[in-house]
């Protein structure tokens, strides 16, 4: 099946400093993909650059195809159609993500007017319906309110309503719950997954919260220092991570059941983007690093169906996995 969105060798540099160093990622129609990694690993930049939302200082190369059409370098008018219309995006900090001086109605209707063939009262009716859909009570009256009159969770719901306004095929949720407290977080995630099912939308959930991703995604890509280091179906990744970084991330999670155990932290810090090691970017922090790790960055290589890993030990892992499968 041809991918809906196909990202190939996407590279981004800010004033010459590389922050994305060759990302390959494919997104199928209707699937939910999680993108996890520490801050600065390039999760958001991947999608901001794909949609042309990065500042001009950023140089972007590679390829991002939507239904086979190249988005990088596409004319602004074409990108404006894609943004919101095919691929919508919601952001981390709801408090500052809506324009403080415009009413919710203006901001919602603006998106509707751009991507839907609606006129006059139909626009407002649709705006009200969307607010209802995302669970804002008293939608008709609340349309006339300003963003500061809503709570953080409500603003994120409005953001979701705005994202739905264009009937997109893909929703990019960039840390949608990071700025919200835990109970609201759960509600927003619940809303996102119910909407995804209802609209048969593909979703990319960008998060540094592995639990959030595990519960809401079919497939997970782990990013480290501007690259994807492992990609696997969610259940397999969490049960059996192969890349040492993925193992480290999952090892740092407290288990819900079983005996209490000491949580392991990954030693060291993420390398400075301006001073990336020649070889594997994770090698300096990796307990299993070998001489060969410092020579060249390992490419993403398949180890099983739907599983790719960028690690020189992957071949051994593949054999191990196959061995288990053969038994």
């Amino acid at each position, binding site marked *: 099946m041809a991918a809906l969105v196909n990202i190939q060798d996407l590279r981004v540099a800010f004033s010459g400093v590389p922050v994305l160093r060759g990302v390959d990622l494919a997104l199928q129609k209707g699937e939910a993909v999680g993108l996890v990694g520490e801050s600065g690993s390039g999760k958001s930049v991947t999608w901001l650059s794909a*949609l042309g939302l990065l500042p001009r200082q950023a140089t972007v190369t590679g390829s991002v195809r939507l239904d086979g059409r190249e988005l990088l370098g596409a004319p602004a008018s074409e990108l404006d159609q894609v*943004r*919101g219309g095919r691929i919508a995006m919601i952001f981390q900090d709801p408090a500052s993500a*809506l*324009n403080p*001086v415009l009413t919710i109605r203006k901001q919602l209707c603006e998106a509707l007017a751009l991507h839907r063939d609606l006129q006059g009262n139909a626009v407002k009716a649709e705006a009200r319906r969307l607010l209802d859909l995302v669970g804002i009570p008293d939608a008709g009256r609340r349309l006339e309110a300003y963003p*500061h009159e809503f709570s953080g969770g409500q603003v994120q719901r409005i953001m979701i309503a705005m*994202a739905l306004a264009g009937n997109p095929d893909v929703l990019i949720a960039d840390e949608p719950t990071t700025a919200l407290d835990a109970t609201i977080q759960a509600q927003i995630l619940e809303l996102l997954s119910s909407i995804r099912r209802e609209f048969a939308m593909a979703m990319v959930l960008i998060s540094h919260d592995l639990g959030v991703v595990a519960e809401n995604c079919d497939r997970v890509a782990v990013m480290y220092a501007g690259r994807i280091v492992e990609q696997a179906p969610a259940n397999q990744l969490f049960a059996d991570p192969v890349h040492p970084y993925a193992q480290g991330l999952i090892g740092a999670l407290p288990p819900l059941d079983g005996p209490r155990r000491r949580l392991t932290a990954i030693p060291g810090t993420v390398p400075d983007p301006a001073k990336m090691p020649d070889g594997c970017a994770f090698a300096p922090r990796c307990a299993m690093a070998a001489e060969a790790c410092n020579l060249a960055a390992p490419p993403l290589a398949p180890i099983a169906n739907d599983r790719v890993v960028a690690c020189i030990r992957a071949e051994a892992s593949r054999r191990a996995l196959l061995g288990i499968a053969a038994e």
Partner: protein
Amino acid sequence: MGRYLAIRFGRAALTIVLVVTFAFVVLRLSGDPALMILGPEAPPEVLAAFRKAWGLDDPIWFQYLDYFGAIAKGELGRSMRDGRPAIELVLERIPATLALTLPAFFFKVALGVPAGIYAALHRGSAIDRAVMMTAVAGFTVPSFVLALILVLVFAVQLGWLPSGGQDSWRHAILPIATLSLGGAAVLARFTRSAMLEVLGQPYIRTASAKGVPWRKVVTSHALPNAAIPTVTILGFMVGTLIAGAVVVESVFSWPGVGRLLVVAVANRDLAVVQCILLLVAMTMVTSNLVVDFLYGFLDPRLRAKGAHA
């Protein structure tokens, strides 16, 4: 809302009283009007009679209360030089000053705001750098220096325009240009930074992410937000319409309020100076009040706060 308004007006009134008091005290401590106006050769009995006639012999607190009593009755005193009511002297100068400051205000806005917006939208470009360099120059060069340079170039060297006086509209060009350039520079800098601040906000990215064309992102999302800080500086400029041209009027011998103020201060013509300062304080305070209300209009967050206060 009523309480909020009452507090605002109360503060405005207090500001005016403070300005007038300050002017009153400083003027009376800094020289004897009788000596200034009649000259050092005047016979002592004439000086004494002058002081008595204008109440300058009375204790200062008595003069002060007297002065405020008169203001309460709407009397702003008479000029010690020609005995005419001070307010009359000042009012007849206002049109001349406005003939400079109003067009200058228009040019400041018409030049400064678009230049600032353009520079912000093309940050780092050659035009941005040119705008900023001009703005820094316009910001740092004092208006009398700028005035003299303009006179040197356009009046002395090229002979295109007169260097002073008020005989025709051509006489107004250089003073207006002097006032406009400095103000436009301030506004350009301010607008640029306000605009850059707004363009970096997440809601601008949100607007782009939902497919709003860039031109519309700028006009309907960025500009309304950047207007909020810019209005502050505009309000300040409106406040200087009456007496913001003191230096320029002096350089170009333009018979406006500014010139009148300089002459009145030099002569310690108390009533005239106080009358001008009262007027200036009132325009300043009024324009600040207007700015406060504009904030409420531009920024819904403040509207809510105002209603609660």
